[in-house]
């Protein structure tokens, strides 16, 4: 059985955690695309019904608040992996 030195094991763990942090950051891209799509649709909705502008802004604001949390989750995981290994 091959035995690795603690130095090698530490390097492997560090590399794996950095790769994991990078992969976690990809999750932050999704909400941006989704928010942009929602904004486009909201713009066309305001064109169709200008009197509903207030309600559309309110709904969009709530949607953006909630959808942005996925990005923060990924950031928290990434920073945790970088600094705690």
């Amino acid at each position, binding site marked *: 059985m091959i035995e690795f030195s603690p130095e090698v094991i530490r390097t492997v763990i560090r590399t794996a955690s950095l790769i994991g942090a990078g992969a976690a950051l990809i999750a932050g891209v999704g*909400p941006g695309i989704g928010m*942009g799509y929602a904004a486009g649709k909201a713009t066309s909705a305001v064109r169709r019904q200008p009197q509903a502008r207030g309600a559309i*802004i309110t709904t969009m604001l709530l949607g953006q608040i909630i959808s942005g949390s996925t990005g923060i989750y990924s950031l928290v995981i990434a920073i945790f992996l970088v600094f705690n290994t």
Partner: protein
Amino acid sequence: MKEIQDPVKMQKEIIKKTYLISLFPIISSLIAGSFDVFLGFIFGLIISTLLLRIKYNNIRRALDMNMEKAEKFIRNRYFIEYALYFIVLFTSARNTRINFLAAAVGLFMMKFTVVLWSVIDLFKDTFQSKIDEYK
């Protein structure tokens, strides 16, 4: 929540409710004497409040644009916000006087409030419909 149609009023209501819910962790961290948790929480909360204002202004600007331009605008602004979140979390991770997890919870507090508010509304509606059925 759904009965509020005015975005400014909605914003004020969200901020008010978030600060009300945040009083519990703030007071408990002060009683426990962990000042780093208190600082981290306040840091995250202030940044999330300011980002809410920025979000509102961005949405208002985006609704005056055409569809493709609004899409691009909101996407770019989201990435700027993402960078700001990164700076906040990075600073709290590097600084020993600010608790990293408390800052993250402070950033999440607004989202948590909105979800909690929606769940309470849902329960209220369900309860009301049951009462109406019974009548």
